[in-house]
């Protein structure tokens, strides 16, 4: 296993922003030693029925960054989300920063380039992003060394980002009572997801874990922070030493019962372009929807 530069001695300040429409949590992560920060998994608002895109959630993030006088260095996507649209380009336009995602985005672009019958003008080389991370790649937020850990399974391009004693797990694990993310999207794989989750659980027990989604199972309040130790002990899908086979069987059976996310088509189409809305030949923003294509 890759040797990751874990440094539990750095404790970044983490602010979570919950998006009620999609149950997504976006984060601002601040380097404790400077005013540098990163944004993780931002959200663009969409009224799908009306085709209307707005930026209330992203504006709230931007306001926080401005009010606290922070400098945005990175806009990270843990993966190509299928349930919400990323606001990365909007935030970049207002505050700067580099947009980064896993290098396997190219696999996702290839898959969905076909699904949406994109023309050759849609590049499938990840060039819409400013940085493409490989497993174990490091980058700096101010003085804080961060690294990306390759964690496929939910999608082929998923990465967990670790910043000091905080790890942003994307859609691998959910809160202990929520279990794990689904693995049935194109290129997803339950066995790979299990292996990826083991990589996360191999981090120090005290590592803080921040979720990308929470649905408040069994009526509890929305929550998004837990720890490696907690997940190992209590996660209902992988905790307490569940085997790979048990997990794969359970995950596959469960996924077969799940409906498609409401926003899957606009999400993939926009997010595989790093959050940019495609345009028609006259430059008007437009989504292209395959009928009977998913």
């Amino acid at each position, binding site marked *: 296993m890759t040797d990751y530069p874990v440094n539990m001695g750095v404790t970044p300040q983490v602010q979570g922003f919950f998006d009620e429409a999609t149950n997504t949590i976006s984060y601002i992560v601040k380097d404790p030693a400077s005013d540098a920060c990163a944004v993780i998994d931002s959200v663009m608002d969409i*009224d799908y029925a009306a085709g209307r895109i707005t930026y209330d959630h992203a504006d709230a993030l931007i306001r926080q960054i401005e009010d606290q006088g922070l400098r945005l260095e990175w806009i990270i996507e843990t993966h190509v989300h299928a349930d919400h649209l990323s606001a990365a380009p909007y935030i970049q336009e207002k505050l700067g920063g580099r947009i980064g995602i896993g290098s396997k985005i190219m696999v996702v672009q290839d898959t969905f380039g076909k699904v*949406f019958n994109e023309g050759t003008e849609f590049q499938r080389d990840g060039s819409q992003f400013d940085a493409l991370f490989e497993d174990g790649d490091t980058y700096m937020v101010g003085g804080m060394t961060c690294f990306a850990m390759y964690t496929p399974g939910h999608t082929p391009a998923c990465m967990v980002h670790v910043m000091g004693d905080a790890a942003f797990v994307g859609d691998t694990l959910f809160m202990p009572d929520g279990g794990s993310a689904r693995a049935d999207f194109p290129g997803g794989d339950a066995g790979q997801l299990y292996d990826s989750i083991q990589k996360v659980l191999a981090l120090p027990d005290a590592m803080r874990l921040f979720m990308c989604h929470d649905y408040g199972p069994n009526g509890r309040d929305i929550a998004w922070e837990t720890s490696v130790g907690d997940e190992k002990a209590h996660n209902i899908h992988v905790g307490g030493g569940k085997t790979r086979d048990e997990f794969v069987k359970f995950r596959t059976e469960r996924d077969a019962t799940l*409906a498609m996310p409401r926003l899957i*088509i606009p999400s993939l189409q926009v997010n595989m372009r790093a959050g940019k809305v495609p345009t028609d030949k006259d430059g008007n923003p437009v989504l292209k929807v395959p009928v009977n294509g998913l």
Partner: protein
Amino acid sequence: MSDDILSKISASNGAGSPKVIGFYDEETGSCQYICICPETRHAALIDVVQTLDPKSFSTGFAPAKWALDYIAERGLELEWILDTHPHADHLMAGAWLKEQTGAPTGIGEKVRDIAALWRDYYNMPDAFPVDPHFDRLFAEGETFKIGNLDVKVMLSPGHTLGSVTYVVGDAIFAHDTLMMPDAGTSRCDFPGGTAAELYDSIMRILDHPDAFRVFIGHDYGTDSRDEPAWESTVGQQKRENIHLKDGASKAEYVVRREKRDATLALPDRMLAALQVNLRGGRLPEPEEDGKSYLKIPVNKF
């Protein structure tokens, strides 16, 4: 699956009066009809739904199949496939039904003007030629037959600018003008809709004799009524319709209607539906990969 479809029979009231089978699409709250001439056993289908899952955009024909089964089992002869307007809340099944049966399709002629509006929204200047997609485009006052039954076409703008009402003997297919008396009237805030025109259209419908049956386009039940319903009479509508019964003037009605419309979300399927319905229920021409694609304009609404 198709066994789950809720249907109700409204008997003929004698010569010149159709037997009407209403059947319901749960997903969209749409009321669809088989209108039958009891003498000749000729039938027309009105406002039949093509299903669309708004998440995956997969389509289906369960209600249309239900209707064709009904027609086949009873030895009816399908004479017309009619729609009252290009619906915004569901895809129509007209093109598919025509493919299956060869019966001609019909809708109001002002669909041409509706198409012009939507060409702009979609930025598709050459789309929706309309004429090739329908066999008949009915004008106000036009008449035709379903078997021996006389059908009169009434232009009923308001919900859209080109909605038509089919009056078949004593049965009025009023689509999205009136709703059930306990639910009121239809919204007018889609492109080309106006509350003032809807009011006038409703008044023309209510000019018919009190005993005439009114079959509506949508019902979702109400807080005090779970079971969907779609049949009332002109008399009932005049006495009981919650948007009309207190003798509201046209001006008052318009204010109320517009206020209420401002609170309504757009239907889930609208941007997909118009694109298909203005093609008579056909999907766009497939691209070279064999799949059809819809365009969802962003920030036009």
